[in-house]
Structure formats: C-alpha cells, structure tokens
C-alpha cells in the first residue's frame, strides 16, 4: 500500500511538468532568447558593438522582435542605460546593435545583457519577455600597457559647440594629477578609484592641429587631441551651366572652412538619371552629359562630413544654361587709315549651333561702335569710319544664339589705323624784330591736334616767298617737334607758308604776310581786368576789310625768352576771352591785339595789360634818404619798377614814426600799423612819384620811416622801419664858425700868455697911481673928502700887532716867481706878519689880505701881515690862491668863522679885496653882522712904498723886525 502511494506520487510529479509544458506550447509561443551575445569596443567611435543571434526560429519564419538591452558600468549592478531595439529577425540571423558611450570606453569596464520579446502582430498576445542573457563584459583596459597615466578618448573628432567627456586612468594613486584644456586648468569628477572624468562643454575650435587636453603628474604628461570641426555650412549660390553642351559645371560657395585637415566631401546627384559623381573640388563639380539627350537635370549637391550632411538642389535646363567659351584668335585682318577688318574664331557648341557674337570698338576707353554678328566657326566684320593713325581696341564676346543666357568672356585686340596726311594747316604766328633795319621774323606754330595730325608729324616746311621778287623762294625744313624758327628777311614784302608733314604728306599751308617795314608801335596801352574765366578784352576795329584778329601774349612773362601765345579770331569778332592754364595771379600779362588785313598783314591795334588777379606787392622799394636837414629829409625810391609788380601800383604809403610819439605831421594821418604800433601815414596816389620830402621835423630827433607800394589788393609787406636822426640846428655854425674862432682865440691866448710880460712891458707898464687907490677913496669918504693922498698919519690902526720875531725866522718872499736873489733890489716885497699865540694879546688879532695886483711894492711893508710865511714854502706864488694848501684851508676856515661866532683864542682872518671894495659899498647900510671893533678894523692899511724906501731886500739871512715898522709914531688911530 505504501509502495503504491509512493509510485502514485512519483507519477503525478512526473506528469505535472509535462502538463505544464503541453499547455504552454499549445496556448503560447515559446520565448526566444538572444544567444551568442558578443560585445566589442570601437574606440574610434567610442561604441559598444553588440552581436547576437536568435535561435528557435522556423526556417521561413520572420518575426518582429523587441530586444531590451541593459548596460552597466564598473559593475553589473550599476546599470547606466537601458533601452529597446526592435527589428525583424530571421532564423540564425546575426543581429548587430551599437551603443555610443559618452564616457570613453577605455576608462571603465562595461557590462551588457539583453532579453527579447516577440512583437509580431501575427502572434497573439500575451507576450512575454525572455530571460535575461548573461552579462557580457567589455573591458578595454586589458589592452592598455603599463604607463602610469592614460587619457581618453584618443584623437576624438568633435563638432564645435558640442560636449565631450574626457577621462584619465592613473595607475599611481599617490600621484597628484592636474589636467588642462589647452592652457586652462580643468576640474573633473572621480568615477572610480583611479578614474576621473572631465566633461567639456561647448568646445571651440583652436587650430587645425586640434585642441590639446593633457594631464600631468610627476611623469611624462599624457594627453589627447580633440579635433574640433566647425559646423559644416550649407553650400550657397549653387548653380550649373554648360560651356559646350557636353559638360555641365556646377559651382557653389562652400562657406567657411570646417578647420580640419579632413575636408568635407561633396557629391553631386542627379535624380532623373539616378547618377552621382564625387566632386574633386570643394566649390565646383563637373557632370558629363551623356548621349541620351537629356535636357533637364535635377541636381542635388550633398556636402558631408563626419557630423553633418547638407544638401541643396537645382533644376537645370541644359539649353538654358549655355555659357559659351570665349572666342579666340581675334585679330585685325586688314587695316587702312579709316577701315579695319576684324576676324575671330569661336568654339563649336553642340551640333553646329550658331553663336551670337558682339564686336565692340573702343576708342580712348569708350565703346564707339558695337556690332552683332552670327557666327558658327569663323567671325569677320569690317569696321569703318575710323580715324587715321588712331589706336583702337576691338573686343568680342559671344552667346548661345538659340537661347541667350550669358555672354562669354571678352577677348580684345588692339590695333592702330594707318596714317594719312595732316588735315589742317598749322596755326602760325610771327614776331617781327628789326635788326639794322632788316626784319627778323620768328615764326611760331602750334602743334596740330591729334585729330588733325593723322600721323606723326616729322617736320615742318617753311616757304618764304618774296612778293617783290616772285621768283625768289626760300624753303626751310624744321624737324618736329620744333614749334618755331627764325628767318631774316630784306626790306621787302614777304609771304611765308608753313606746312606740317607726316610720313604720308603735307598739311594745307598756313600763310603769314610780312611787310618788311617796322610796324607802328605807338598805340596806347590800356588795362584789362582778369576774371576766373580769363581776360575779357575787346577792341575797336580800324579797318572794314579786316580778315581777322590776333591777340598775342606771353604765358610766362617773368621768364624769358617769352613763349609767344596767340589766339586767332574771325573778322566779326571785336572781343574775346583769353584764358590759359598758365595764367597765374599776381603776374602782369601784356596783350597785343593785331588786325589782319586782306593781304594777310598784321597791324598792331591795341595793347592791353592786366592781371588775372592783382596781388599786394611782394616787396617794398629800397628807399634812400637824401637831403637830410634838421627839419626835413627826402625819401627816394627811383629804382623801384612799377611794371613788374604783382598788381598795378596805385601809389605808395609813407609811414613815419617818431620816438616822441607826438602828433602826426601835416598831411599825415595817424594809423595803426600791422604790428599794432601807432604811426603816421602819408598816401602818395601817384605811382610815378618816387620821392617824398618829409618836412617839419624836429632837430636832433629820431624818426623812423617805411615806404610801401599798394595795389588794389593791398599794400606791400611790413618791413623794418629805417631810422633817421635829424641833425642839430647849430651844428653848422659850430662847424664853420665857432670851432675856427675857438682855435684862433686859443692861439692868441697862448701867444699872449707866452708873451704876456713882454706885452705888459710894452703896452701897459705898471704905473703906480696913488690917487686911484681905493683906500684913498675910503678915507676920503670917511673923514676928509679932500684928502687925495693917504698919509700914514691918517691911518688909525685899530690894533697894534707886536710881532716878536725870533731870531732865525725867515722872511718869505711872495708875489714873484723869481727867486729872492733875483728880486733883490728890484721888486717890492711883502712882509707877512702873522700873530703867534705867544705874543698875541688883545681882543683879537686882525689879519688882512691885500690885493697884490694893486700894489706890490708897498704891500711888502704892509701893516698887516698877509700870508704866513712858512719855512716849508720856499717859492711863493704870485697870488694868494697859490698859497700852500694847508694855509688855504686855514684861511677858509677862519673866514667862515669870522662871519659867525669866533671862538676865543682863535685868530680871525678878514680878506679884503682891493678891487671889489666890499666895504665901500656896504658902508651906508649897516652890516648884518658887523664885526666887532675890538676884533678888527674894517680896512687894512695898504701902502705904496717907493722902492727906494724899501728896506733892504730880504734875504734868507736877513731878519726884519716888526718893531721897525710899527713905530708908535706911525700908529694910526
């Protein structure tokens, strides 16, 4: 029983799974498990590549299936991504799927597993996920070497602006590693024990050689280069054309460079034909037209690089886009003076299609003719109405005649037409001068304009025909480019013909008639005003038969010889405007107007002078100062030419300044000078007046003057003033009269002085006249008017001076130049008595100085001592003023003291001039400070002592006692 039970249980247990299996097979599809899962690493693209198969499928079965994939990093449990992949699966099909990792795969171990589920509509629901496959490991680190540091991803290509994750693996945990993007320190995130990751956002382009990211520890730095590509731009201006209906050329603007060494690829697709071609250039692509006569093309240009694909399309009609090749071999087939036949060739298009060619003729850079010609292979056209000896440019371009779209490139060819004879006579004028009565004619002619030369002028022919001798012809040939020649003629009438010659022939002749006699130059000169247009001038015709007029002038009259200019005018003209580029402001131009007679003779009609624009004078005259007197001087600037100035000189300004700055002289006006100083100005309004007299000046005064001319444009430049000093009024007298007189007086004086003694002796010897003594008059005035001779008794001395002359004292002789020995017995001698302190008594001494010129004989016996005779004065001078210096001082001092208080004990000196007689005039009026009687008598005794009465002549050894002179009986009271 027990055994039965066991068997039953075992059977049931065996049947249970079978039951289960049967129910599943019948009711649900079997789960299809992915098998043979393999994971590989693509380091370049940083992709995990999965490869697997699904078994258990019928041979003909195709099922749509979903694969669920899980990816883990570092460890299987760390799932970082999970996603589904749907595809149709066949039996034994190897399936592929890739996953791009943000983190470089070398930096981490990755694990992958998947499961599957049938997702086919033919299989009824419900559907079940199969079991997970086992984890497959992807480990890129196995392939690394033994370097201490690795940085990944290697050499990654990224687009500018994208984000990149960079990681490093450090084998040395102790190493302190820092990483840099270019030269900027970058901070990362630690993913594992030895793995760090750096997320670089918005990477930018640095250079074609890539952006460097490197890490460095203690060893060799390790790094990667990120090749950053600029964003690929869409091609712009995509267009196509054909040059020959055989090749279509498409062009475009690729935009800016992506900055990588690897250039983007450009491919041209044509949708109608389904063909494509890889372009060899980044901006141009050629497409070969096949023989199937496809006319319309739908081109698509695809630009592609690692990151992007850009495309642009265009619908192109072959016939409408024909741009013919440039014609070639353009040349002038035949060229004459006025015609040229141009020939050229074109490249054939298609099947003998015609081209429309345009031939242009350019002269002096401008299109002057344009012709359209239909051309198949060779083009030819005759250009007419050309000018001789003229350079032209012929150019041609062509377009497709059936449908014009674009001209071909231009080709051009220069050619020059042939020469022809000059078409116009040269414009000739003459200048006639007479040398020794013979006319010398200088012929001038103007070069023919290019329009008329028709070639290069080689020479000019001058034919001189003597009208008085018709058979006489003289021919001169003047080689070009000369424009004048000189011919000497006789006193006959001449006709001169001038022709210009080029290689083809002569021009029409130009004739000039010469009379052979001097012309009338006595014509009044007028003035003409210049304007911006030139000189407007008019004249009065003199003859009704004038065939024309000529105005002549010099373009540059300041430089000689004159380059003669002239202007021909018709007979109806009575005025013209003379203009020239050579005209300059401030230059005087002289115009001569000639009238041309019917015989071709020229007669001077008028002269005119003018300035295009008058300027202020450029320089001032050199002014000379003449006739300088104390009250005037004359200014002269006669050398100043009024003709060659920068304007018509209207007059002169004379500026005058004086040092004193006084008022301006008459006719001068006060003005402020350009240097802000004030001066006087006189205006001379006659340009021919070149002298000016400055009058009414002060003698011995400094004046400054300055003369400047003025024109209608202003006055001359401000120069330095010239100084003039007027002389003294009497200087001439001094010079002519006084100085000679002084000289004469000096001579006479010297002579007289030298001969004074002689003169005196001869003319007025000294005759003593006692009656004329002033002393006498004084006495007479005082007491007895009748007394005429002074007696000794009349003299009342006020004081008696007792001179106690010690022995040995010497008596000095004064008043003569001769030595005492010479004067002995012949000259009166004065004896000076000086008070001494020892013998002085009384209220005061009285010392009188006598006039020696008056009485020399008696004075030496004078009552009063006059001069101190000192032993130190061996030679006494004639006058008192020649006394020794110390004496003079003493005298002066004492005299001054006598006028005031006299100190006690001091001697008073009172000088009385005999001639001046001071007291005689002052007697009636009391003196302001009358002298004290006790001090001194007013008058000193002066006596004329005859020579015979004179005491023995003093000598050095003689001594004269005063007592002998001062006898009491003779004492005056």
């Amino acid at each position, binding site marked *: 029983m027990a055994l039965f039970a066991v068997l039953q249980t075992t059977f049931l247990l065996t049947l249970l799974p079978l039951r289960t299996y049967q129910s599943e097979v019948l009711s649900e599809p079997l789960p299809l498990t992915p098998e043979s899962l393999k994971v590989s690493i693509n380091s370049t693209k940083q992709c995990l590549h999965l490869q697997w198969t699904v078994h258990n499928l019928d041979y003909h079965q195709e099922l749509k299936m979903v694969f669920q994939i899980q990816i883990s990093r570092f460890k299987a449990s760390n799932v970082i991504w999970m996603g589904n992949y749907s595809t149709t699966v066949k039996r034994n099909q190897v399936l592929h799927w890739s996953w791009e990792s943000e983190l470089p795969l070398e930096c981490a171990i990755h694990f992958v597993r998947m499961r599957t589920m049938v997702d086919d509509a033919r299989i009824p629901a419900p559907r079940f996920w199969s079991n997970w496959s086992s984890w497959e490991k992807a480990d890129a680190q196995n392939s690394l070497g033994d370097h201490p540091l690795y*940085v990944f991803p*290697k*050499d990654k290509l990224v687009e500018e602006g994208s984000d990149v994750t960079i990681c490093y693996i450090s084998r040395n945990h102790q190493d302190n590693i820092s990483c*840099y993007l*270019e*030269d900027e320190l970058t901070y990362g995130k630690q993913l594992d024990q030895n793995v760090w990751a750096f997320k670089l956002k918005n990477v930018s382009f*640095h*250079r*074609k*050689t*890539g*952006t*460097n990211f*490197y890490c*460095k520890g203690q*060893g*060799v*730095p*390790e*790094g*990667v*280069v990120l*090749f950053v590509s600029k964003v690929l731009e869409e091609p712009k201006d995509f267009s196509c054309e054909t040059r020959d209906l055989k090749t279509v050329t498409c062009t475009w603007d690729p935009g800016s460079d992506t900055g990588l*060494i690897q250039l983007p690829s450009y491919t041209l697709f044509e949708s109608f034909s389904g063909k494509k071609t890889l372009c060899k250039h980044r901006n141009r692509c050629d497409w070969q037209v096949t023989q199937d006569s496809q006319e319309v093309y739908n081109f698509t240009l695809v630009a592609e690089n690692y990151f992007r694909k850009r495309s642009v399309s265009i619908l192109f009609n072959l016939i409408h886009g024909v741009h013919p090749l440039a014609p070639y071999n353009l040349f002038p087939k035949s060229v004459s003076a006025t015609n040229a036949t141009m020939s050229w060739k074109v490249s054939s298009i298609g099947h003998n299609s015609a081209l429309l060619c345009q031939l242009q003729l350019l002269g002096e850079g401008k299109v002057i003719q344009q012709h359209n010609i239909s051309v198949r292979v060779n083009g030819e056209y005759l250009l007419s109405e050309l000018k001789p000896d003229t350079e032209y440019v012929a150019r041609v371009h062509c377009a497709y005649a059936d449908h014009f779209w674009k001209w071909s490139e231009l080709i051009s060819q220069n050619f020059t037409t042939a020469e022809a004879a000059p078409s116009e006579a040269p414009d000739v004028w003459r200048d006639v001068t007479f040398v020794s009565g013979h006319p010398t004619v200088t012929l001038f002619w103007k070069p023919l304009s290019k329009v008329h030369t028709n070639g290069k002028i080689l020479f000019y022919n001058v034919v001189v025909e003597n009208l008085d001798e018709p058979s006489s012809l003289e021919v001169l040939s003047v080689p070009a480019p000369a424009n004048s020649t000189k011919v000497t003629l006789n006193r006959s009438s001449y006709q001169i013909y001038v022709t210009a010659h080029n290689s083809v022939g002569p021009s029409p002749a130009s004739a000039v008639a010469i009379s052979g006699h001097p012309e009338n130059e006595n014509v009044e000169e007028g003035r003409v005003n210049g304007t911006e247009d030139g000189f407007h001038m008019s004249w009065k015709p003199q003859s009704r038969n004038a065939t024309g007029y000529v105005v002549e002038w010099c373009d540059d009259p300041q430089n000689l010889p004159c380059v003669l200019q002239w202007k021909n005018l018709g007979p109806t003209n009575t005025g013209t405007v003379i203009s020239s580029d050579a005209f300059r402001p401030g230059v005087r131009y002289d115009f001569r107007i000639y009238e041309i007679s019917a015989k071709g003779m020229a007669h001077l009609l008028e002269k005119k002078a003018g300035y295009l624009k008058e300027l202020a004078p450029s320089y001032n005259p050199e002014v000379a100062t003449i006739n300088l007197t104390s009250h005037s001087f004359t200014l002269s600037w006669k050398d100043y030419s009024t003709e060659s100035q920068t304007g018509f000189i209207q007059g002169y300004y004379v500026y005058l300044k004086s040092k004193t700055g006084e008022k301006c002289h008459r006719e001068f006006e006060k003005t402020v000078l350009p240097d802000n100083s004030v001066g006087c100005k006189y205006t001379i309004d006659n340009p021919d007046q070149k002298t000016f007299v400055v009058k009414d000046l002060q003698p011995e005064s400094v004046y400054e003057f300055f003369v400047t001319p003025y024109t209608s444009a202003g006055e001359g430049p401000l120069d330095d003033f010239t100084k003039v000093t007027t002389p003294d009024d009497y200087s001439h007298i001094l010079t002519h009269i006084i100085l000679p007189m002084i000289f004469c007086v000096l001579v006479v004086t010297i002579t007289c002085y030298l001969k004074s003694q002689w003169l005196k002796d001869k003319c007025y010897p000294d005759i003593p006249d006692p009656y004329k003594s002033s002393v006498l008059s004084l006495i007479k005035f005082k007491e007895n008017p009748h007394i005429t001779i002074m007696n000794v008794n009349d003299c009342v001395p006020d004081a008696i001076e007792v001179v106690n002359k010690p022995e040995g004292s010497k008596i000095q002789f004064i008043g003569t130049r001769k030595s005492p020995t010479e004067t002995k017995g012949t000259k009166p001698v004065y004896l000076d008595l000086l008070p001494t302190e020892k013998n002085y008594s009384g209220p005061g001494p009285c010392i009188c100085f006598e006039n020696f010129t008056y009485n020399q004989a008696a004075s030496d016996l004078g009552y009063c001592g006059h001069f101190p005779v000192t032993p130190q004065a061996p030679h006494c001078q004639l006058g008192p003023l020649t006394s020794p210096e110390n004496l003079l001082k003493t005298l002066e001092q004492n005299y001054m003291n006598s006028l005031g208080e006299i100190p006690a004990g001091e001697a008073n000196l009172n000088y009385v001039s005999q001639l001046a007689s001071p007291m005689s005039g002052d007697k009636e009026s009391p003196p302001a400070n009358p002298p004290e009687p006790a001090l001194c008598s007013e008058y000193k005794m002066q006596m004329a002592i005859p020579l015979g009465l004179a005491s023995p002549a003093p000598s050095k050894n003689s001594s004269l006692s005063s007592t002998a002179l001062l006898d009491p009986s003779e004492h005056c009271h």
Partner: protein
Amino acid sequence: MLPVAGEPAAGDSWGMLACLCTVLWQLPAVPALNRTGDPGPGPSIQKTYDLTRYLEHQLRSLAGTYLNYLGPPFNEPDFNPPRLGVETLPKATVNLEVWRSLNDKLRLTQNYEAYSHLLCYLRGLNRQAATAELRRSLAHFCTSLQGLLGSIAGVMAALGYPLPQPLPGTEPTWAPGPAHSDFLQKMDDFWLLKELQTWLWRSAKDFNRLKKKMQPPATAVTLHLEARGF
C-alpha cells in the same frame, strides 16, 4: 625650454643662405682644399661653425612658429617633459667626460649621423604640416640643414676621415605611426625640435673646439659659445 620666437623676418635672406649652403656643399669638391700647402681645413671648419650658429638662429624662429602650431603645452616656455618614447632620435646630450674623450673623427661622425637622422625626421615633419607657410619654413630649414650636413662632410673629407656608411636596414624612415596618438606625435615633434637645437649647440662646441685645435696658437681666436635655454 624652447624659446618662442616670432615669425621669421620678412626679409629673411633666402639668397644668402642658398649661396652659403651651395658653397659649403661644394667644399669637398673644391680641389684647392686637397692640395698641399692649402690653408687646411681651418676655413671650412670656420664656415661650418658659422653655419651651425646661423642654423641655431633659424631654428629659434622655426621652433616658435611650429610649437605655436602644436598648441599648449608644447609652446609654453617652461614645458620640459621627461624624454620618453623618442629613443629613435639621436641623443645630443652626453656626459662631459665622455664628450671630452671623443676624438675628432668620432665627434664629426656623430655629428654627421645625427644630422642625417634629424634631417630625415624633419622632412617627415614637413610632409604632415598643415599650413603652407609652415611647410615653406620647414623646407627652408631642411635646405639649410642639408647644407650643414654637406659642410660636415667637407670637413671630414678635408681631415681625411671617411663618411659613415649607414647600415642596411637602419636608415631612418619617417612614417606616421598608427599606434601613436596625435598627442604623442606632437610630443615627438617637440622632441625632434629640441634634439635638433641641442645638437646644434653641441656642434657649435665641437666645431669651436676643432677650430681652435686647427689654428696656430699665435693666431688663435677664442670664440665663446653661448648656451641658452631651450
């Protein structure tokens, strides 16, 4: 340290250099140099020395341009990584005692071999340069270096030394190694320029020494070689 110099001067004398190189290249072929009584190898040594100094100057300019082209850190003045992985380059640095112990022949042979290798690598550098201007500068320098090589050969010939013959299979070839990352390639370029400059210094010293040795003592002229930081 590589000095970062500016671009070569606009008036850099191509003509002068070409003339100099031509003259130096032709030196071995000048019969006068081999005659008895000739001035000897002195003038050619002097010219080789001058060319070495000129190349130093030229390399400073080229290196500045090229390192800027590589970008940081290669153009940084203080970038001085350990020398690894560039064993193929001839190493210029040598122990002073070893250098002193070298004889003239060995010295010249080493110079010749080194520049032969460096010239080959330099031409490879030129091929991969991205800009036309850089290619022009590199080509210019290669021409100059070729001249120096010829000059050394001339000196060796004048002194009677045979030119070293490259062993078969050891000729240096340049190939963009696929195993190399771009960063390592840049590092190689950096080391190439650095070794080149070190070799030029060494050559200047070598030729200066040789020049002194060949000159009579009375007329000896001392030339000081200034070694500057790389």
